[in-house]
């Protein structure tokens, strides 16, 4: 009897330390952030919980432009990534042969370099007198006043670059699961290659595409590194606002309210995803 009880308690004992860590430093902070967003006061005299929801209204009205821009950049980035990633994932899954893991490894190479350093490297490449533009300008292919840095395309390029592997991997995982016999069956039934793709392969890849959308849209629309390094005041994103409000202005209530608003917007997406498609696909990709 005692032995059986012990066996039943074993999993709880195993998840206790890690679960507690996640509870204390992942779940509780969210509550702390919500609470802080409803407080009034300042760093010097302290804060008081007054349930001032107006902070949310103000935050949303003052930074509507940045919120909309961030979601827009996130959307453009995600669509670009699907277009870029799908053919690669397809080719590796179906034609990669014995070199599959080598190609995946090559696609993951950027992750061996710090995120900030990668983005700074792009800044190097794209700057006005830099490696890319200077030769083109010298050859007269581009006008002297042409520049990329500081524009929306530069920021979107950075975002697309930095999160692309998060799109390739889940699509690849989904495509690799496609049973070749299903494809063969479709061919035997006289489906044209286009039909095979549209009616068999593409629908089966959708779970991967959705996982990829989740894993790229969330970090892209909440990013502040790319816009800070590659953009200008015209590309200001909500992540930059939140970072400054927290770290430079120490305006914690406004910062928390904005951060919670962003979380709320993204969380709706995350929640719908988990409800409809489950958590397995994302966890599997993370395990790679």
């Amino acid at each position, binding site marked *: 009897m005692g032995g059986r009880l012990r066996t*039943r308690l074993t999993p*709880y004992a*195993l*998840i206790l330390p*890690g*679960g507690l*860590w*996640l509870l204390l*430093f*992942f779940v*509780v*902070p969210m509550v*702390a*952030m919500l*609470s*802080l967003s409803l407080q009034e006061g300042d760093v010097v005299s302290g804060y008081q919980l007054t349930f001032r929801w107006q902070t949310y209204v103000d935050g949303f009205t003052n930074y509507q432009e940045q919120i909309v821009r961030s979601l827009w950049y996130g959307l453009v980035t995600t669509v670009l990534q699907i277009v870029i990633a799908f053919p*690669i994932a*397809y*080719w*590796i899954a179906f034609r990669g042969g014995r070199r599959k*893991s080598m*190609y995946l*490894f*090559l*696609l993951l*190479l950027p992750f*061996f*370099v*710090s*995120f*900030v*350093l*990668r983005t700074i*490297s792009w*800044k*190097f*490449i794209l*700057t006005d*007198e830099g*490696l890319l533009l200077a030769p083109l300008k010298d050859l007269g292919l581009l006008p002297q006043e042409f520049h990329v840095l500081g524009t929306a395309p530069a920021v979107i390029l950075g975002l697309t670059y930095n999160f*692309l592997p998060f799109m390739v991997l889940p699509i690849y995982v989904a495509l690799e699961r496609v049973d070749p016999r299903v494809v063969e069956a479709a061919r035997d039934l006289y489906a044209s*290659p286009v039909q095979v793709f549209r009616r068999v392969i593409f629908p089966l890849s959708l779970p991967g595409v959705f996982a990829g959308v*989740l894993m790229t849209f969330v*970090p892209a629309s909440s*990013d502040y590194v790319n816009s800070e*390094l590659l953009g200008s005041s015209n590309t200001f994103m909500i992540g930059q606002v*939140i*970072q400054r409000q*927290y770290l430079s202005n120490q305006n*914690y209530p406004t910062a*928390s309210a904005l*951060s919670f608003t*962003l*979380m709320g917007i*993204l969380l709706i997406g*995350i929640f719908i995803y988990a409800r409809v498609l489950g*958590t397995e696909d994302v*966890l599997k990709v*993370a*395990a790679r």
Partner: protein
Amino acid sequence: MRRRLADRVLFVYTWLIIIWLCLPIGVMILFGFNDTQGRFNQTWQGFTLKWYGRLFDIPDLTNALWRSVVIATLTMIIAGALGTLIGVALGRYRFRGHGSMNFIMFAAISSPELVMGASLLSLFVSAGAGLGVATILIAHVMFSISFVAVVVRARVITLDRNIEEAARDLGAGPWTTFRLVTLPMIFPAVIAGGLLAFALSIDDFVITNFTSGTTTTFPLWIWGVTRVGIPPQVNIMGTLIFAFGILIAIANSIAARRRLR
């Protein structure tokens, strides 16, 4: 014939994207060899190895790098241990709360880093905790646990339960069974998970930015000097971390292949 052509186009396309992905890395490595005069290391001035000799000439940078390495090592150990336990629990047992645990991990993996960093800072501010190495470590362990857990879980699921039962039948207690039978079988995954935690920690910028206060790590130091100019030492350290990471990854995959044989 048409399919052949399509395959070839896709092959070229894949390689072009790989080159695009590697382009900034190449630039980073190259400019570690640049014979630049001032701190603005942006135009090519000729090849030199001198920066490799002066790698540790900037004390703040060196300190930041070592701090990053120490934090990453501690993260690897703590998150490695805690994540492994969760991974074993989720892979082996069915229990009430199984789904909630999976969901919390899923949420921790897919939540925006910005929000995780911001919420941790909110907690630390509310609790009046001072920011520094300890708070960075807390944050890094927090976001690494789930990754270790899913890696270990994936391995545990594939294990043959009969082996452990055989150990039990031969009189081994639960702890002995775990130590002598289960752990050796899942050890590759534990190592892989730990290395993943190390890599996530040493590269992390966003969450560290929020939880560090005035303490700097390697990525934070770089961020701080972007406006003044990045010294070539940064490129070299980036190159070394890159090379080290690749070596470990290759060694890991060779070891995995050996085990399969």
